[in-house]
């Protein structure tokens, strides 16, 4: 009895091991492929189908009629679409650019190994670790027209603060949202760029100094090209993240006043989860996906054109 069990296990083992060995790569990537299909491909395809139907959950639980491209036409012509697209682009482009510039400056200062830099590095990471929704609430108090700290600081510096509050005025509300993102995400750029600048060998910088290059030339022609891959990737990452800004807008302004801080992300939320207009929001989703992918594709094409990967 005992002997037979062992023998049968022995007979089985090579077969099983052969299967595992042959299919190991597929087995290893299977979980992520399944997750990807379940969480991204399926919803996207579901949304694609829904976008061709009139389907509003306030009217009925099922899609009611095939409407062709009507939802797309309606989405593009909606009162808020252009405003949302413009705001989103302003936020993504300015946000990414300012965060990169500030982050790089901070990274270069961190490299100077001045006293106390260890503490600064540790503190820097803090904003990035706070959930955006919490950051939103934090800034709601800071921007408060009555007693908010930032309002007070601006007033103390004799800078004009709108009577209706920083978040209440169409002229300052978007800038306020942008400022929150910059506050939270500049440290991310600083830390990542700092780490990649550390990997630039000292001798190369020294060689450039002996070649009579100025600090500016060394930055532009040696350091930045050498960290280009990292920089390209985090810029792309942040651009896509800001493009989908939603939570800070929800907490701070709900897209207002008017449409002045409405973003594509917030629009999707409102159409889908407030108005339950599934057909329309599916069309909007696809428009957003297309825009962001076209931008990223162009960016990747130009950024990595001459790169041998």
């Amino acid at each position, binding site marked *: 009895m005992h002997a037979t069990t062992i023998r049968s296990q022995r007979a089985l083992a090579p077969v099983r091991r052969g299967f595992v060995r042959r299919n190991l790569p597929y087995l290893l990537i299977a979980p992520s492929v399944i997750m990807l299909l379940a969480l991204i491909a399926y919803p996207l395809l579901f949304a694609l189908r829904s976008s061709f139907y009139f389907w509003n959950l306030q009217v009925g639980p099922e899609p009611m009629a095939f409407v062709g491209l009507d939802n797309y036409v309606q989405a593009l012509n909606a009162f808020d679409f252009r405003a949302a697209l413009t705001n989103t682009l302003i936020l993504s482009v300015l946000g990414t650019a300012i965060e990169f510039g500030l982050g790089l400056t901070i990274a270069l200062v961190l490299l100077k190994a001045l006293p106390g830099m260890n503490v600064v590095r540790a503190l820097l990471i803090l904003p990035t670790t706070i959930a955006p929704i919490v950051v939103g609430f934090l800034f709601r108090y800071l921007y408060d027209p009555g007693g908010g700290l930032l309002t007070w600081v601006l007033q103390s510096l004799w800078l004009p603060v709108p009577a209706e509050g920083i978040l209440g005025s169409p002229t300052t509300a978007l800038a306020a949202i942008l400022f929150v993102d910059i506050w939270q995400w500049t440290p991310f750029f600083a830390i990542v760029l700092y780490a990649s600048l550390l990997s630039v*060998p000292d*001798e*190369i910088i*020294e*060689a*450039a*100094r*002996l*070649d*009579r*290059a*100025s600090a500016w*030339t060394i930055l532009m*022609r*040696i350091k930045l*090209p*050498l960290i*280009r891959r990292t920089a390209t990737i985090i810029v792309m990452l942040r651009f896509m993240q800001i493009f989908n800004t939603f939570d800070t807008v929800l907490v701070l302004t709900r897209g207002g006043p008017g449409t002045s801080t409405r973003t594509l992300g917030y629009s999707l939320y409102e159409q889908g989860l407030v108005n339950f207009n599934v057909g329309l929001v599916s069309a909007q989703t696809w428009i957003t996906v297309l825009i962001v992918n076209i931008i990223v594709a162009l960016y990747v094409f130009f950024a990595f054109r001459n790169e041998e990967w």
Partner: protein
Amino acid sequence: MASMTFDGIGKTYPDGTVAVANVSFTVADGEFVVLVGPSGCGKSTLLRMAAGLELLNSGRLLMDDQDVTNTEPQDRDIAMVFQNYALYPHMTVYENMAFGLQQRKMPKDKIEKLVRDAAEMLDLTKYLHRKPGALSGGQRQRVAMGRAIVRHPMAFLMDEPLSNLDAKLRVQMRAELKLLNQRLGVTTLYVTHDQVEAMTMGDRVAVLKPVGNDGESNLQQIDTPQRLYDRPANLFVAGFIGSPAMNFVRAELQADGASLRATIAGTGITFPVPASAALSAYAGRQVIAGIRPEMFLVCSEAEALFNEPIPVAEALGADTFVFFDIASPPVTVSDAEEPEEFRRKGTNRLVARIPPVATPAPNQRLPLTVDLQKLHWFDPLTGAAIRD
């Protein structure tokens, strides 16, 4: 072109470690000087000071009698070749070589001509449009050289530029570098830990040693390779220069009428010492005798000073190195710090260079004598050479 003077250079790190102390020497215009020494002897630090990449605590650095001690690297007009070449990985060979010229706001056509000339000289023309990553070690090394020579700098600084190459290529590049230096006539300061490289390349060689405090000097001796070999200033230089290294034995000196006799400590081996006023002063005391491997001569048993079994013989073809032990306490270069009991006991392994025909069978005795005229003598306490 320029001369370069190190005047009492010293560097102490904030934690109190003394890296360099009291180093003074001058590299003449167009001269090729090699800094050589074991790890930690401060050779790279000195080179980096010359480049302006490292600050000094004391002393002055002059180039053509101009004080450049506090001049930024950018303003020194010096080119440096780094151990790992430090090529700009994102630039082509051409761009690597042109970069320094572009910083001087030189017109494009002039840059092009200079780079092409240098590439021609270094046989790099085919590779101008490649990036360093696509080159072999030897080619990268040449690009690093090219980057230095296109600028026609006042001086070259080279930090172990050949140490990342394989043995064969290193020998080849050694000769090429030497030729290049003769052709360009640029003042060159060259750092290496390899004494063969130092001996073969340097017009003069500076032998450096790690220092323990700022009262000493790293610089042990600076001289032509031949004089370093023939007349080492102290035990350290004698032991460092030459391969295999010089043999050291302890010997008691006794006055024997007008002449001197030496007896190798712990053995009965005794031999007459050529008369010398400096050595006479050591009569009745212990000294250290230095014997180069080639000073041993194969002889008959009657003439032999040494007649020991040979456990190991290394046949190199042209020569054979034989190793043998004598019952005499060993000598180390840092002898003064050795505890007394170590100096009394132990065996001392010596190496001799003999003609291949004389190679003995394993563990056979080989009678050897020594060319007594050529012996080196050192003071056991200071390590300084004893000479008239």
